[in-house]
């Protein structure tokens, strides 16, 4: 799961179908979908959002959503 990886680790997204439709739409808008490679940039404290990088662009998403994204470590 994305959200269980450590800072600096890279992974490929396998499945995003479990997250909320709105969030999935927005991630799709930003070019993030199955097959996309992402890198964990940082975790905000107190269970706050995480920042991931994909194709040179940084995106913030909440941890609740991140743990619903299936990934494989690269």
């Amino acid at each position, binding site marked *: 799961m994305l959200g269980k990886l450590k800072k600096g680790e890279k992974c490929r997204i396998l499945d995003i179908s479990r997250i*909320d439709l*709105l*969030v999935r*739409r*927005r*991630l*799709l*808008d*930003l*070019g993030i*979908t199955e097959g996309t490679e992402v890198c964990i*940039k*940082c*975790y*905000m*404290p*107190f*269970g*706050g*959002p995480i*920042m991931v*990088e994909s*194709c*040179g*662009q*940084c*995106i*913030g*998403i*909440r941890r609740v*959503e991140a743990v619903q994204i299936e990934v494989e470590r690269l």
Partner: protein
Amino acid sequence: MDIALIGNPNTGKTSLFNNLTGSYEYVGNWSGVTVEKKVGQFKNKKDKLIDLPGIYSLNPLSKDEGVVTQFLLSEHVDKMINILDASQLERNLHLTIQLLEYGKPVVIGLNMVDVALKRGLQIEPNHLSNQIGIPLTPVIARTGKGCDLLAEAVTSERMSEPNARIVNYGIEIEEAILRFEQLLDNKSSRSARWLALQMFEGNQYVKKYVKNYIESEKLDQFLVEIKDTVKRSTGVSIDQFIFQKRKETIDQIMADAYIKREQIKTPLSEKIDAIVTNKILGLPIFFLLMYLMFMLTFDWLGFPLSDLLDAFITGTLSNTIENLLNAAGASAFIHSLILDGIVAGVGGVLVFVPQIFILFFFISLLEDSGYMARVALVMDRLMEAVGLNGKAFIPMMIGFGCNVPGIMAARTIETPKERLLTILLTPLMSCSARLPVYALFVGAFFVQQKAFIVLSLYILGIVVALVLAKLFSSTILKGETSFFVIELPPYRLPQFQALWRSTWDKGKGFVKKAGTFIFAGSVFIWLLSYIGPGGTDVALDDSYLAAIGGFIAPLFEPIGFNTWQAGASLITGFLAKEAIISTMNIIYFAPDEASLQGLLSDYFTPLAGYSFMVFILLYIPCLATVATIYKETGSKKWTAFSMGYALIIAYLLALIIYQGGRLLGFM
């Protein structure tokens, strides 16, 4: 010709707009700076250019994105400029395909080629143009390089129709499009192919539009059928399938137009991010920056500058005007109107221009550098706890400058509940017009700790907003899931010129208001203080102003300021917060700021002064803000609510502070 400017958020549309039209619109480095359409004229004085909010797709999620879809459905457009971010070409092209399907001629402006190069991506503009089949011009939107060529390309008369069939969606969908064309029967002037595809993707705006031409039941049945067909034959939902087909086409385009090279080095942006969004340092850095901003505005730089200006207005300027009036032999009436009314009223507000410009400079710096989106990220956890999301913090930060653009900025928030909540709470952010009131009172009562006292008011505003957010979101605005996905743009070194323009653009509103609204208000207030039931040139306590102010003044006894002067200035404060200062300058006949501060201590104790500032901070959104709240919510009920709850909260807090303070032995 009407030419629309369309592109992803934060790709430099507004910069390009400014360069193409020679006008100046507000730019910033965060997604959602432009939330409504703006029209300008090309330098050739013939064609019109329409700047629209940034979108990822024509199928909108938030209200500002809906502006674009609505525009394409209901207004006339001859051509389009599609601005692309070269460093994010892949996702930008999803929008390009939808624009091609719309069927109007499109010209591409390829921006941020330099950013792409730094990331090791080289683009062949000619190949890209050939692959997509439409003209393309590389531009640098920030500096204006290439803009003349782009203007030429788009305003030239001849231009072929674009290839609306750039993507082949496979037999099922292509057939469905044909059937839809028959259903529509040329009743709409929009491309049937585009309308159909947008509806298949689930675009509600387009569906509503099509229902004007096709019976609702018939249309729903048609849509359900095609959705089922696609699901059965492909195994994925129709919107996902459309997305995949577009992606295949884009991959082909990219394969030809892109040359991948070694990335040169870690981008600076990532190095900065490692610090400012650091797990431990993130929040402290944000608060430190805020603290620096306030110290500079109120203490180190702003106050001395305001004092200098005050000395000039009340000294040299007033003396010159007085001499001129004497030389012209003006009557006592004119004399009093100009010196006691206009100079006191308008001058009293203008004195604070330096502080307000410093504040606006910092807000512009936050916006232009790219830090704003990081603030949203850093604050999200806190905002989530009170039923909002991190993006709601951006309108609130903008609200520190002026509540009106702050409330407009709430359009970028996707969920209606969180957007409404943000609109209702942004007026609690202490805007720049409230700043003169604080400056005056801290100068009179809290000289030693002025920056600290002012900072306490700003923080109070934020705290009250957060507490109320929690309260409202768990009572009257319950339900609906929260939503937070944010794009973090790369940092840019702010250019001084852009910063200055942005600061000036915000600040000029304040100066302009002083010259118009406050000017007229000052004359009116002076007149009310000059005449009374007993005739003209009455003693101040017998004037109409005293009668009106005195009528409501007893209400403020429990919170420490039962004077008709306070009552009168609170009424004018509804029109514009800085009018409070004008009114006080006029009422107290104070020749300058310093003597007004001296006079104030006769009417207020320090505790009552603080209570007054708290009341001013919260008591009501100004007239312009109320109008904006009404425009943005479209609801009289919520507009009335925004005024009502503010009054109650302001009174309660002022009461607690004043009575509590007295119990504790403060004066």
